[in-house]
Every structure is written in structure tokens, then in C-alpha cells.
């Protein structure tokens, strides 16, 4: 209202110069003003929620023009943090509800200026870091401007650094937040807790049930599964660009760069240096620097000056010792430099330890074992060191880099607790992108040999070659472990033969009529398939003997997560054409087996039908070719394993033919198949197929041993 007071004083001064003929003009002006006033008043006091319009935007955080809130001395103070709080006791999960996206909604209170009853500011305005943090939240998917739909509330009261706070008044400010309700579902961010002399490891501001995302928790103050341990952000991260260095040995083995160390620690470190010489470097602050050089960026050892944090990149291990506080910003610098942190701070809860596996990125040494540090670190194998260096850098890039990274990781952790069934997995949190890209998690990872008794279901895809089909059915039905035969009738123009015409076999025979002539019909996960093992067989593969098929099934049982088939093929890199080539000649290697005769797990039918990447499935159906190559790509890609070619057989169709395989020899066919490989490799973005040099034969195959004693004597040799 100070603006109006000013206007008021200037008003009367104008009057003497006014003329009465301007009366009408002034009356009009007055009426307009009055109307405006009424309109404003109506807008102001209209029942719609004011809060809904006061969402968190960039302008709102303007330091000026924030409403001032006066805190009377007797206004309530929240209770101190309740150490027994857990998500199921102190957190109101009903606010979050079940939603299909499984994402919590976060509301940010609008900025206010708090003054005590004497008009003194309770705290400074929010810091650059807290501003970044709030901006990150408001830009994220978590943000909502609707206080009624929010599940988590973040106050615009900056408590990152306890040193800058007036504790009692800050607590009072928290308590008068509109949805405070004992702090339920409120999240506070704090990085520097405690103060002299005893430096508590959690924020001293009484906060009742509010969750605390704190840097420097100890096991005594950390409420596991409720609080979130966050890093202490290092402002140097933005100032200094440290390019990633390749993992490997560095100039110094151990480096200590912290300045304010307890003398006892420093003498321990100096003893370490005296003992091990050059490989250990203990730095301290520079005392004899000329004016103007920021001391934060320099470290000294004796008279030698080092640039900080660049010097961290010269060391394999960097010590992160506890200071007065457990959480140290140096941890962030060390990670950024790709140096392996050696954390020496008993009872310290490492940042984001709920989800990050620090054992893969750091070495934690009990304070007691500090003198043994050198030998402990020496015992770490080089491979592990390189892995940790890579991991350290990845942690920094993903979770330490900026206030935004810290804020989002914190919210994701809370989100994971509220929707644990949709939580990010360990691998998603911990694996660096390079590993995520190249690693394979086999969907059938249990090492099992399925029981023989279950048998297999044979699926024959057919169009109209009835005679040949009946021969295949008769042959396959002789296999002891066959439990069901499924004929997929892919011809819509013609009905399958009458029931009476089908061969009589000992197992159930079922015909599935498809609605469209598509190759992918052979890989549909039909409900009729009740066994785990599926034998896909073409309607013209008549040469496979019962022994061969039974043996193939036995081999599949030993490798239930692989394609186990008879016709083997190979892909090769054509250096002239610079692309992949399909090969069916007599090769010493195999990378595919054709599904014209192959065993595989039923699960892969599901994958083929519903999880095939890109447009491969439609592409195959449109081209009426390469469904088998697509299946090979799919299985190799999810399991990371090679196929198994069983038995020596190379010929499958007509006994009269002299060619290896009538169809496959056709030149245009080979070109098409090569095209398929190139197409699929580009869709998968990689070449998942694995080349092997072995095939599976019965143990006594071609051994000098009476045939009648062999389990599988009738194995064709060609």
C-alpha cells in the first residue's frame, strides 16, 4: 500500500492547476476508476480458488513483490522430527492414489517472505541452488499446480543450509503452510545440517512428520525407507568442466584434497604419505597465495600448487573423510573426476544409498582401519578399479551433476516407494548407459532342465500340400515325447481335409484355421500349446527321423532358453558390399537355425507376436519371407546366446534331390535373405546373432560302439 500513499500525497498538489471545465473529464475518469475498482473487487473475492492461479512459475520466484507473512512469536512450532516415522505410519498414501502412470504429483508452495513480529526477516530469500531445485521440479512430470491433487508438497522455504536459518522462526513458517498438517507428505531439502559445536547429522529445524532429503545423514538420524539421503551439491560442478577420462592407472594412487581436516586425521594421512612416498599425495589449503586467486580452486602440498578439482583426475583413489559434517561436497568433485572415492566416515549414509550400489563405485573403510588403507586399496584388482572409475563418473553424471539431477532422483526414490511394483530396477539405477546397451538379461534366466515328461507340441504350418503334410504328421507322431500336434491351416480359400482323412495318431491333433495367410501365424502363442517346448516344423520336412527329433527335444531340455534346430545357417560380413550376407553353404560355423525344424520355448511365441521390435512383424508378413531369421534375431537379442544346431543333417526335404536344400540354393532367394538380415540388423540397432563352431550330437555318435546300445542310433548323416 505504500504506492497508494505516495499517490495520495501527490494528489492535492495537482488541484490548484485544475480547471472546472475539465470537470466532466474527471467525472468520467472517476467513473471508470470506480468501475474498475468494482470489477477488481469482484474478481478478487470471487469464490474460485486463488491458489489455483498462483502456481509455481518463473515469475513467481521473483525476489521482489513476494507477499510478506508475519510470524507472531507465539505461533505454533512443529514437533521435532519423529524418529519412528516410516512410510506406512507417517505418510498419507491416500493422497497419491492409484494412477495408471504410477507417478506422484508434487506441489510447490508459492514464495513468501517471512518476518518475525519485529519485522526482521526470518531467512534470506531462496538461494540459487534451491531456486534451481524448485525450477527442476516444476519443469518435471511430477509437478502439479493443483494443491488438491498433490501427493507431495515442497515448501518454498529454503533450508538447504542450516547455517543461514533462524531455527525457531523457520519452524514456525513451516507450521503455517496451508497444507502442513503436522508435516505429512511434506518434503524438505537440506544439504548442510547441524551447526556448531556438535553438528547434528540431520536438520535441526523441528519438522514433525515431514520427509527430509538430507545430505550427511548418519545411521542414527536416518529413517530408513522414509528419509532420502542426498549428496551435498558441489557448486564447482558448474564452474569447472572436467572431461571424462578413460579408466586406468593414474599418477597418484591415493589423493587427499580436503582442506578442513581434523588434525588427527591429517597426521594419519601424513603418516601414510611418509610410508608410501610418491604414490600418496596429501593436499592442504594454500597459505602463501597471492591475492585475487580463489583459494577454493587451489590446493598445495609443501610449496607445490595444484589446480583443484583438476588434480583429482590424476589419482586412482580419492579420500573423502568426514569433516564436522558427514556429508562432504568433495564427494561430488571426486566422482566427477572419475576418481574412486574412499569414504571414511563411520555411520554415514551414502547419497541415494537406497537405490545406488556404492560397493560398485567406492570403497568404504571404517575409521578404525584408516592405517590399513593402503594395503586394503592395493588388494583391489585392477579390473575392479576400472569398473569403479567408470561407475563413479556415471553416478556423478546421472545423480550428482546438478540440483536438477539431485531433485529428480529424490522424487524418483519417493515415487518408487509409493508405487513399488512400478519402481525403477536396480539395473536402471546403477548400470551406466554403455552397460545398459550391451548387457542382456535373459527372460528365461533360471538354470533349469524341464522334465522330460512334459513333452513338446509340434506346430506344422501348412497351406495346401496335404500329402506332404500327412507324411510329416505320421513321422512326427512316432516321436515318443510328442504330446500334441497342432496344424496351422493358413489357406483361407480351401478348407482342411475332413477329419476322417487325417492320419490316425496316438496324440491329440488339432487344426487351427487362420483368418489371413500370414507367416507370423506359425509363431502365435495358441492356447492349445500346453507344453513349454514347441517344435516348429514345415509341412515338407519329411526326412527327420524319430531318433533325431527325440534327440533334438532332449537337447532343447538342456538349453530351454535357446533355439535348438536342425538346418543351420550363417551370417557373414561382406567386406566388398559393406553389409551382411546370408550363407547356407557348408560352413564351419552356425549363427542361425531355421524354424522349418526347430525346438524353442513357447515364451518366444509370445515375444514374437507381441514384443517384436519395430515393424519387423508386418514387414515379414508383407514379404512372406524371413520369419525364421526374425525369430533368430529376437531370441538371440533377448537371451544373448547362440543357437544350437543338432545332428549333422543337412538335407530335409526330398531324398532324391542332390542339392543341399532345394529352395535355399536359389540365387534370388539368397539375395532376399541377405536383405532380411540387413533390415533386421538395422531395426535392432545391432547384430545380436552369435556365431558358434559346434553342433550337438548324441554322446556316442559315430563312436565305435554297438548301434543297438545307443539311445539314438538312427541319426542321419546328411
Amino acid at each position, binding site marked *: 500500500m505504500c504506492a497508494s500513499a505516495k499517490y495520495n500525497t501527490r494528489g492535492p498538489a495537482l488541484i490548484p492547476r485544475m480547471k472546472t471545465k475539465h470537470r466532466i473529464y474527471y467525472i468520467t475518469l472517476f467513473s471508470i476508476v470506480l468501475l474498475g475498482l468494482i470489477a477488481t473487487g469482484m474478481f478478487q473475492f470471487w469464490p474460485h480458488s486463488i491458489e489455483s492461479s498462483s502456481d509455481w512459475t518463473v515469475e513467481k520466484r*521473483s525476489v521482489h513483490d*513476494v507477499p510478506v507473512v508475519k510470524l507472531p512469536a507465539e505461533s505454533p512450532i512443529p514437533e521435532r522430527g519423529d524418529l519412528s516415522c516410516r512410510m506406512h505410519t507417517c505418510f498419507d498414501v491416500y493422497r497419491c492414489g492409484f494412477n495408471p502412470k504410477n507417478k506422484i504429483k508434487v506441489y510447490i508452495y508459492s514464495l513468501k517472505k517471512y518476518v518475525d513480529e519485529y519485522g526482521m526477516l526470518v531467512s534470506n530469500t531462496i*538461494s540459487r541452488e534451491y531456486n534451481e531445485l524448485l525450477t527442476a521440479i516444476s519443469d518435471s512430470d511430477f509437478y502439479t499446480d493443483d494443491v488438491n491433487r498433490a501427493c507431495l508438497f515442497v515448501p518454498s522455504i529454503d533450508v538447504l543450509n542450516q547455517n543461514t536459518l533462524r531455527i525457531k522462526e523457520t519452524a514456525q513458517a513451516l507450521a503455517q503452510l496451508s497444507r502442513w498438517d503436522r508435516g505429512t507428505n511434506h518434503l524438505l531439502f537440506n544439504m548442510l545440517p547441524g551447526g556448531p559445536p556438535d553438528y547434528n547429522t540431520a536438520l535441526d529445524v523441528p519438522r514433525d512428520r515431514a520427509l527430509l532429503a538430507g545430505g550427511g545423514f548418519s545411521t542414527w538420524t536416518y529413517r530408513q525407507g522414509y528419509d532420502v539421503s542426498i549428496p551435498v551439491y558441489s557448486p564447482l560442478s558448474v564452474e569447472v568442466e572436467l572431461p571424462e577420462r578413460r579408466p586406468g592407472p593414474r599418477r597418484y594412487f591415493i589423493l587427499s584434497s580436503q582442506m*578442513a581436516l581434523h588434525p588427527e586425521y591429517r597426521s594419519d594421512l601424513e603418516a601414510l604419505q611418509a610410508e608410501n612416498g610418491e604414490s600418496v599425495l596429501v593436499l592442504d589449503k594454500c597459505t602463501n597465495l597471492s591475492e585475487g586467486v580463489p583459494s577454493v580452486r587451489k590446493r598445495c602440498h609443501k610449496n607445490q600448487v595444484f589446480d583443484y578439482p583438476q588434480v583429482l583426475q590424476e589419482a586412482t583413489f580419492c579420500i573423502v573423510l568426514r569433516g564436522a559434517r558427514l556429508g562432504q561436497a568433495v564427494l561430488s568433485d571426486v566422482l566427477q573426476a572419475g576418481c574412486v572415492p574412499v569414504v571414511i566416515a563411520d555411520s554415514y549414509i551414502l547419497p541415494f544409498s537406497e537405490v545406488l550400489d556404492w560397493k560398485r563405485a567406492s570403497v568404504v573403510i571404517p575409521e578404525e582401519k584408516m592405517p590399513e588403507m593402503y594395503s586394503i586399496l592395493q588388494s583391489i584388482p585392477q579390473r575392479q578399479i576400472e569398473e569403479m572409475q567408470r561407475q563413479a563418473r556415471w553416478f556423478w553424471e546421472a545423480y550428482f551433476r546438478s540440483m536438477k539431477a539431485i531433485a529428480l532422483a529424490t522424487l524418483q526414490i519417493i515415487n518408487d516407494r509409493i508405487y513399488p511394483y512400478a519402481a525403477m530396477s536396480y539395473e536402471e539405477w546403477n548400470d551406466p548407459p554403455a552397460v545398459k546397451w550391451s548387457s542382456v538379461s535373459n527372460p*528365461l*534366466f533360471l538354470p533349469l532342465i524341464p522334465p522330460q515328461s512334459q513333452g513338446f507340441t509340434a506346430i506344422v504350418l501348412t497351406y495346401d500340400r496335404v500329402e506332404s503334410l500327412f507324411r510329416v504328421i505320421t513321422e512326427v507322431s512316432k516321436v515318443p515325447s510328442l504330446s500334441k500336434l497342432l496344424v496351422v491351416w493358413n489357406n483361407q480359400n480351401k478348407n482342411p481335409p475332413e477329419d476322417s482323412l487325417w492320419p490316425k495318431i496316438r496324440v491329440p491333433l488339432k487344426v487351427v484355421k487362420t483368418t489371413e495367410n500370414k507367416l507370423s501365424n506359425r509363431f502365435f502363442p495358441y492356447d492349445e500349446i500346453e507344453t513349454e517346448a514347441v517344435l516348429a516344423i514345415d509341412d515338407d520336412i519329411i526326412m527327420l527321423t524319430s531318433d533325431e527329433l527325440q534327440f533334438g527335444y532332449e537337447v532343447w531340455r538342456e538349453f530351454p532358453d535357446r533355439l535348438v534346430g536342425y538346418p543351420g545357417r550363417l551370417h557373414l560380413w561382406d567386406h566388398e558390399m559393406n553389409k551382411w550376407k546370408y550363407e547356407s553353404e557348408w560352413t564351419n560355423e552356425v549363427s542361425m537355425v531355421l524354424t522349418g525344424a526347430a525346438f524353442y520355448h513357447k515364451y518366444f511365441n509370445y515375444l514374437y507376436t507381441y514384443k517384436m521390435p519395430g515393424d519387423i512383424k508386418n514387414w515379414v508378413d508383407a514379404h512372406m519371407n524371413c520369419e525364421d531369421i526374425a525369430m533368430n534375431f529376437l531370441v538371440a537379442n533377448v537371451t544373448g546366446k547362440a543357437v544350437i544346431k543338432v545332428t549333422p543333417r543337412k538335407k530335409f526335404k526330398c531324398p532324391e534331390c542332390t542339392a543341399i536344400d532345394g529352395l535355399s540354393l536359389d540365387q534370388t532367394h539368397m539375395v532376399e535373405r541377405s536383405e532380411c538380415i540387413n533390415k533386421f540388423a538395422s531395426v535392432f540397432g545391432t547384430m545380436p546373432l552369435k556365431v558358434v563352431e559346434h553342433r550337438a550330437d548324441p554322446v556316442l555318435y559315430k563312436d565305435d560302439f554297438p548301434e543297438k546300445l545307443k539311445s539314438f542310433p538312427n541319426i542321419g548323416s546328411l
Partner: protein
Amino acid sequence: MQARGRYLLAGLAACLLAGLYLRPGRRRAAAASPPEPEPRRGSALAAGPAEAGGGRRARGGAGPAGGRCRMETCFDFSRCRRHGFRVYVYPARGRLSEPQRRVLRSLRGSRFYTPEPGRACLLVLPLERGPRSPDAPARPPHWNGGRNHLLFSLHRDGPLGFEPGQALLAQAGPGAPGFRPRFDVSLPLFPRRLPQRGGARAGPFPAPRRYLLVFEGQRSPSGLGAQTRAALHNGRDLLLLTACRPGPGARCDRPAAAADDARYDSQELMQNSSFCLVPWGRRLGFFRFLEALQAACIPVLLSNGWELPFSEVIDWNKAAIIGDERLLLQIPSITRSIDHDRVLALRQQTQFLWETYFSSVEKIVLTTLEIIQDRIQAHISRNHVMWNAQPGGLYVLPQFSTSLADFPFYYCALGRSPAKEFTAVIQAASPLLSQSQPIVRLILAVAKSKYCTQIVVLWSCEKPPPPRSWWPSVPVPFSVVEGEHKTMSSRFFPYDLIRTDAVLSLDEDTVLSTNEVDFAFTVWCSFPERIVGYPARSHYWDSSKGWWAYTSKWTNEYSMVLTGAAFYHRYYHYLYTFYLPGSLHSMVDQMANCEDILMNFLVSAVTKLPPIKVTQKKQYKETMMQQGSKTSRWADPEHFAQRQACMNSFASWFGFMPLVHSQMRLDPVLFKDQVSILRKKYRDIERL
């Protein structure tokens, strides 16, 4: 005056209006007004005056004795430094409960056990049955306030009845209010029929099942009232059954009982459902939990605030749905929202966890000890992957390496493949007399392999090894190691010298060609966690004698590959030496036999898969049989009887028969095909 009043009024009004419009904090106003230069914000964290040096070993309120304990405050690490992680068990005086007795038996049988309390890092105090006086634990001679003591508080032991003080508490059962995180260990409640060692193998890959979610309980459990039940139960794929007429193992569906008198068997129900509702926190729930795991039924835990078993190391999100009691009604939609792939993964994980950590008393006890050991040696402990992926924490010894890349199990997970190099380790037992001895030929053949990067001869002959000049000259590093103890087991000692992941273990009389070695090595690269070798043996159950029988006859299947010529990962040397108990080692050493059988037992126990036999020239067997006096052990009937005996003692130590049969042999793709030999890469294998 009049005008003046009007102007005043107008001015006032304008002022008021302006004031309202410019009310701080209104977006519209802020947008309308010209942007003000933002003052530079201060950093909250910019290095201010350096904080004082900080108190050394300032332990936030170092606990009141007992009550709040952490490993740093209530555990004496120095005790473990001297003699390693050794566990002592006090002799029990009073009456012990059955579970307590079984736990103690497993403790005494473990490789950590020591009979001397002075050497122990951890002391286990048996909890006697019956009422205990509050000062009961004060009596043990090394009690010292409970420091370094471990108590197994099992459900049948009743309440503890005294303050555990600084003793670690391994607690089963729901009542864990005073659970001290990272200090106490949460145990599962194990049923009476849980085997002592061994434990059942997991079933087949869990196929999609009939029911989505089942719950089966006796009385209306608290929190799961009739109303909730009625809201969830739909009789089709959501079955929530509460007992009406308790019969043996059968329960009926009460509200629907009038309509259809369907009877369900509790085990069968779990076997046929994808998810099982487990209201944690009640004893019944505890048992149901393990039953569900075993049945590959994903537990849906309503576990508000209870510590799940071994939650310190097991990632339960990978095997269970952790729900919230308060959101019970959301359970159906949550379970329906989980897709097929995830269900398959969750269910396999239930099987993995069950088999690895819960299927026998011994596994539960060992897991407890390993968790504590991991805390004591924090810098050499298992990471999350080691605990939660095949083959599980009990078979992965971090003392070997803390790097995943050093183990044979994680190549796929790390997106790597084994390095193309191996070390040949040749066991030499007879003196080197002539240059035509098999060992010389063997060294030359192996050295020619392009994958061979090192040859190590383990000299176990009584005579001193011959000078270097006697050995053939080879293009790869060659060394002779003279073991301290020239025992059978020493051939599997993890010498630092062996640096490659792959080891080719050879007997001195083995006959191999370079082709055979190369081919076997490429096969091993596809199966780095298994033994890949040439001569194979088999076992079978001899029901007439009631024991395991060993056979070296040519059979259609095999379950062992002799380590006289086999590739395997170097980690198995470590595991053989440090995982297996001294009793088995000394048995092998005394007989100078069976070391290969033991290695096969071990590897199959870890991988749960058979070894792999690759093809070989057929004279191998004959040569072995016709060897001179030194290797006559193969033909000796007593030798055979020993191996038979070994099989049975190994099987009893493992608690089950880990060997698995295979019916196939891996040959080169063109092996014995009717095609020009020039096309074939591995020609020598076919030539006789």
C-alpha cells in the same frame, strides 16, 4: 473544495486500484510490469568459512548400551582381524527347541566354525527353552555385554525375555519392533519339514496360471475383514478363501459355500495362481510367505513396516509385490497391471531366492553368517548383483574378487564375453626322463594353440623339478610351480600365477592335439560357467545297494567330465580350495583320488547344469588304459571302489546330488560330414 474532494477521491480510488493490481505475487501484474533485473542470488553452498575440523570418531550419541546399536559401536572388529571370520558356538546346557538345535547343527558344520572361543569373531549363544531369567545371558564366559554375540531367536523359542544388549539378534517371526537396521538380521520363519541341507530344486519355468491372486487363511485375519474379502473375491481369478470347516489341508469358500461347495487344497491353490496374498505380520503370513515362494507364486505382501527376510541384501522388489495394507482394494488392479514378462521374471526370481537362500536350514544359517561377514569386511563384500543374480551370494566369495568381471556368471549381465586366452595347468607327477614322454608332446601341442597364453606345470613329483633346459621350448610363458603340499587338492589351488579367466587343466599323460584344444576352448567361450572337457563319466542311483554308483563305461549320457583334460573358469580353483570343507579335501588327499569328481560336484552345484563333453580322438581312452605303472590307477579296481565311495560322501556333504546328466556331445559343425576335409576347420579331430 468540491472539486478537490472529488479529485482526492479519484486519486484514492486510482491508488487503491493500482495497489490491488500491483499486489505483489499476482502473475498478471508481474507480466504486465516491465521485467525487473533479478538480483543475483546467493549460493547456499558456496564455500564459506571452513567448518571446524570436526570431532574425531564423533558418533552421534553413541548408543545407550544396547538399545540402539550399530556395527561401529557395538561390535569389536579387532576380534575378527586376527583369525578371520570364525564362529564359536557355546555348548548348550538346557533344553533346546527343534529349530534352535537344527540351526546350531548347521553352525557347527559350517566352514566358519571354530571350537575355540578365543579365536572366534562371532560367538553364538544357544537360546534355551522355557522361561529365562533376565540375567541369563550374563553367565556365558565371554559375554561382555553381548559384544560380538549372535542370538538366533526362532519362533519356537518364545520371547527373548532379556535385553540382548550389544548382541546381534537374528530374529524370525513377526515381533520385530526393536529391529536395529544393519545390526540385527531378519530371518524367515521356517517350517518344520524344511531339510537340514540341500533342498529341493526349482520346478519348470512357471507357465501362466489359472488364478491371478489367491489368499487362503484360517480365521478372518485382522485387516482382511469380510467386507474387504467380499470386495476382492470374484470366484473366477481372485480367490480369497477363509476356512469354514477346517479339514486336513482342505478349505472351503465360505460365502460361496452354499452355492458351490468347491473345495480347494491350499498347496494346489498356490501352485495354480500367479500371485498369493500374504498378510505379513502374522505368524501364518510368515509361513505362507515361504510356501508361496516355493510354489513360484508371487507373494503380494501387505507388509507395513515389517522387515522382510534378509532384506539387507535381497532385493524383494524383484520377486514380490510389496503392497500397502491401507491400499488393499487396489491390489487387484495392481496385479492386473503387471505384464506377462514381469510376471515371468518375478516368478523365476521367487524360485531363485527360494532355492538359494531358503530351501534348507543350512542355507538360512549360512546366509545369516555371510551377511554379517559382509558387514565386517565392508570393503570386500558382495554387491547387489552377487546377492540377487544366479548363482547367489553363497557361492560367490568376495574374497576372490569384488569385481563382477572376475566371475564366470556375469558375462551376459555386463555385456561382455570371455577373453580369448587360457592358461594350461599341467599336473606332473612323474619325473621328466626323456623328451618323448607324453608330457612333452602335450606341452608342445597345447603351446601351439593360438589361445594359449601361458603354461604352468604343477610339479607334484617327489623329485625336484628338472632345469628349464629340459623342458621343451615354447613360444608362451612357461613356469614350473612346486607346491608346498604335493597333494591331489593342490592341483586346484588358486595360484596367483594363473591370470587368465580360462584354465585348461591337464594330466601329464593326456594326449591332445592342438585342434582339439582350440575347439574345446571355443566351446568353453560359449559356456564359461561350466566345465568343458573330453572324457566323461556318469553316475546313477543303484537302488539295489541304495547308493550312488559311479560308472566309466561308455554310456549314452554323462554327468562328469574328467579334469585331466578340461577347460573351466579360474574362479572354480578358488571355490574348490576355500568353499569346500577340510574334511573333503583331506579325503581327496588321503586317497589321491576323486579330486575331479569333487570339482564336478562343486561346479554342478553352483551352475545346476551338467558339464559339456566335446569330441575327441578316440584313442584317448585306450591310451589312458594302457599307460604304464604310473597311471595304472585307472585300471585298478580299488581305485574304482574309492571313486564310488567318494561319490557318496560328497553327496552327503552337499545334502543332495548336484550332478546333472547330459545326453549330448558338442562336435565341430562339419564333424564327420561327407564333405571334403579341406572345408573343415578342425580336421585333426577326425583323423586317427
